[in-house]
């Protein structure tokens, strides 16, 4: 259990170090996540896809991700320090959120449905 938490931290640290060393613009934890996916794919080829994720890793990740929403709260509360900005730019923020979200759903849905229809 603890060793798998250490594993996640090591992948995060390696991701951060790699981003820093190569001056990558990508966030470090994302690089760590991609690296772990690659390791799991490699393990899946070796031991089969159903056994690729060790039970301890499964337990740690499901515990962590089961409460993922809680982890956003401290940063989210920080929005209270930007209320003036939110109020003065409420119109562009609302238009940008609604417009781009609806457009992205429409484009991906229609495109994917068309591509899936082909054999």
């Amino acid at each position, binding site marked *: 259990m603890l060793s798998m*938490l250490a594993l996640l931290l090591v*992948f*995060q640290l390696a*991701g951060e170090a790699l981003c820093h060393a190569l001056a990558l*613009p990508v*966030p*470090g*934890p*994302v690089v*760590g*996540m*991609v690296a*772990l*996916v690659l390791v799991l794919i490699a393990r*899946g080829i070796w031991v089969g896809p159903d056994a*690729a994720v060790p039970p301890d890793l*499964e337990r740690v*990740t*499901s515990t*962590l*991700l089961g409460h993922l*929403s*809680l*982890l*956003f*709260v*401290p*940063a*989210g*509360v*920080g*929005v*209270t*320090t930007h209320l003036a*900005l939110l109020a003065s*730019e409420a*119109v*562009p*923020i609302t*238009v*940008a*959120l*609604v*417009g*781009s*979200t*609806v*457009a*992205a*759903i*429409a*484009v*991906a*849905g*229609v*495109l*994917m*449905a068309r*591509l*899936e229809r082909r054999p």
Partner: protein
Amino acid sequence: MMHGLTDIWVYLARDPLFGLTLTVLAYLAADVVYRRLKMHPLANPVLWSVVVLGLVLAGTGISYDRYFQGAQFIHVLLGPATVALAVPLYRALNMLRSGWPGVAVALLASVLVASLGAIGLGIAFGAGDTTVASLAPKSVTTPIAMGISERIGGLPSLTAVLVILTGILGAVLGPSVLNALGVRNPRARGIALGAAAHGIGTARAFNESPEAGYAASLAMGGAGVLTAVVLPILW
């Protein structure tokens, strides 16, 4: 007696434990309400925790910095939690082995429309640079979006809230948009919801069907990685 209580209050409000405990309690309460309301997107527990905690801070006069001294112990777990997303992403990759070129094309299109659309509309309607940078990654899952926002000069905390609002919008409006366009294929619906509305859209897709849910999980992870690569380069 009153004096004693004030002393205790002053002591507690300074202790980092206060911010930590308050955060967990507010979230637990919001989560109970969310489950009671059958996980309706508008009852999102993160949104309501932020509202309640914001009101508590405003009411008690505790500064955000002081609150964060305690809350940071929760915040640091975002890094390992982002890495942990590798496991559901790997499972989703296995579920959808065929047809991945189509998925990749749809994901890239969604990422470009979501981020360039948000940037374009934000600028067109007069948002400032910081706001535009905070808006750009709003369609991807919160830990990745906050990381991108920080990289391109946005405010991660503003991004966190915009991401949640995007998820709610996507989950509430998305199914109607897809119905209106005649998109019935569950994989296409899942990809669209997961790519544009991350975890909240994915939860909505799982409500429709397991196939849509797995497609949405894959789309959420894929869109997160694509956005993390594309957006800082475009910026």
